């Protein structure tokens, strides 16, 4: 299902994309056979050939240092790049191996654009990584990374995120984490965190109250969410490191679906019924400077900010059924996002790339996930089949979407690429829902230079 979900920007970046993977058959480890793979529908993906990343052998064939972590780095790195939505791993075709012209020519002829080589150093505790442009033979990335012995996958994620940032413009999401809700005791939900690779599942909140719809602060330090007290639904924040909570509001009625402004970390947008029916407001995180943006007697909720902070999309049933609307962040210029007939839509989320919104659409009796451009053109339905899919949220690089689906019989979190491909299950168990993808991890704990 090849989609042009990242249109012109991607083309200009990735027209060069070629990728060859060159596997040294002569080396001692058994490498998996990697076959020439050209993505159906075109060459939108950047071809990268991964080579090296091997443990060091001395002259008598004995491995020095620890061979296992570097293998894990290579395997995880290949997987991260292959799933990234930008890169594709390609093998050098057998028929081209004997061609004259040298390795780079062979790789170029196989369709690769870049050559990624890793070499361990410091007795296997770090790895030097170079990315070479096969056309110019210039090294466009050269970095040294610490190999974390107890979690070599994290090293791979940081390398992958650096490469994704280089080609995609936004820092990659493979090292980041996802917050979500799951019932802890029989009645109430708590906030949990899980790494984007599915590891490290851990409980964050111990509130013993019913909570929904968490959202991250731009610095990744806090989550804001809505929780039920004795009488009302109120807004609350929780510090991700300490678990300490802070109530923002105690207004009557329901205060729901808060989200931080991406450009002003002191401001949240949210929906509240304090004036009678649910409207969109902004306020400061201390609850002051309350400002009402919408003014309609029907329901307005689930605000999501554009990455430049100038617009807000939200759900409203002012036309009869819930649909996605867009307005300026001062409340002016309200208009429908799409002109789909008889639409029943909800749960909008604006891509951090700015060029797409993801939302849900009701088909028959269950929901599927769609994206559209901010002007409402080019609506693409990404999911289909059994199960109801809800709460879609973008990864911080705008290349993936995490969402809830009941396809497995109970609610669980899934991740797919922004074109709907590469669906994979993230959580285990049952009743895992309402995900929110954290801002990207900096990688400063792994990159030796750490100059960023």
């Amino acid at each position: 299902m090849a989609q042009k979900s990242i249109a012109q920007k991607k083309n200009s970046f990735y027209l060069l994309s070629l990728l060859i993977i060159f596997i040294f058959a002569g080396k001692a480890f058994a490498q998996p056979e990697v076959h020439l793979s050209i993505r159906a529908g075109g060459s939108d993906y950047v071809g990268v050939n991964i080579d090296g990343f091997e443990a060091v052998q001395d002259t008598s064939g004995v491995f020095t240092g620890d061979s296992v972590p570097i293998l894990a780095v290579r395997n995880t790195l290949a997987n991260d790049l292959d799933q990234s939505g930008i890169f594709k791993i390609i093998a050098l075709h057998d028929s081209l191996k004997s061609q004259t012209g040298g390795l780079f020519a062979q790789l170029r002829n196989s369709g690769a654009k870049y050559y990624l080589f890793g070499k361990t150093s410091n007795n296997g505790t770090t790895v030097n990584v170079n990315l070479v442009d096969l056309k110019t033979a210039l090294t466009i990335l050269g970095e040294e990374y610490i190999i974390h012995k107890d979690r070599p996958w994290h090293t791979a994620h940081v390398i992958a995120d650096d490469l994704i940032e280089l080609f995609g413009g936004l820092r990659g999401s493979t090292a980041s984490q996802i917050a979500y809700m799951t019932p802890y005791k029989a009645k109430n939900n708590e906030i949990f965190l899980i790494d984007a690779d599915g590891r490290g599942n851990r409980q964050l909140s111990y509130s013993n109250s019913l909570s929904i719809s968490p959202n991250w602060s731009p610095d990744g330090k806090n989550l804001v969410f809505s929780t039920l007290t004795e009488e009302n639904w109120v807004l609350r924040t929780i510090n991700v490191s300490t678990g300490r909570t802070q109530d923002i509001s105690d207004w009557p009625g329901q205060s729901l679906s808060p989200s931080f402004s991406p450009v002003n970390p002191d401001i949240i947008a949210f929906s509240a019924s304090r004036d009678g029916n649910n409207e969109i407001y902004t306020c400061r995180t201390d609850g002051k400077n309350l400002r009402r943006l919408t003014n309609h007697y029907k329901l307005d909720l689930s605000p999501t900010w554009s990455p430049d902070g100038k617009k807000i999309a939200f759900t409203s049933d002012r036309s009869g059924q819930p649909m996605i609307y867009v307005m300026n962040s001062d409340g002016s210029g309200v208009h429908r996002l799409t002109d789909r007939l008889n639409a029943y839509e909800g749960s909008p989320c604006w891509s951090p790339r700015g060029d797409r919104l993801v939302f849900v659409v009701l088909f028959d009796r269950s929901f599927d996930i769609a994206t559209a451009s901010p002007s409402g053109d080019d609506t693409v339905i990404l999911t289909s089949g059994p199960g109801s899919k809800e709460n879609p949220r973008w990864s911080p690089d705008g290349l993936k979407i995490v969402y809830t689906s009941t396809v497995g019989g109970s609610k669980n979190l899934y991740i797919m690429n922004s074109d709907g491909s590469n669906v994979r299950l993230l959580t285990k168990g049952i009743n895992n829902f309402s995900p929110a993808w954290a801002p990207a991890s900096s990688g400063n704990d792994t990159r030796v230079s750490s100059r960023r």
Partner: protein
Amino acid sequence: MFKSKVLMIFALGLAVSLVGLTGCSSKKKTTEPVKQETKTQTQRPSAPAVVPKAPERTEESVPRDLAFTTIYFDFDKSDLKSDQRAALSKNAQLLSRYKSVKIRVEGHCDERGTEEYNIALGQRRADAVVNYLTNYGISSSRIRSISYGEMRPSDSGHSDGAWAKNRRAEISITAR
């Protein structure tokens, strides 16, 4: 001579009636204590009689098994359906009869749609029931409302049948 005779007769008559009266009353006095004694012989002695505590209001006492009927709704709707009118009416009558009872109306939804949309929809369902009751004449001071959205399903299944059971407003008793 005539006047004095009349006076004498009058005085005699008065004297006789006075005697008669005193005689009757003393007779009554003597008989009543006798009657009382015969009555009280069968009763317990002495202590002041215990009077059962009378209720401070005039309502009926609330039966222990008092319960209200759950009201059901169509998908994405909060209007009261005609087939729910009987249940609504019965709920109102119960509140009207047992005036000390206070309630909380709790709105719920099936699991489809965002959690926050369902909080709002659940509140609209609760509000619909509250409005019916207050229009009936029940004081709004006796009624609170809240929405749980989809978070407290009655049936955790994913079928149409399960969903139908979850689209509801429940009434719980907060004071008797």
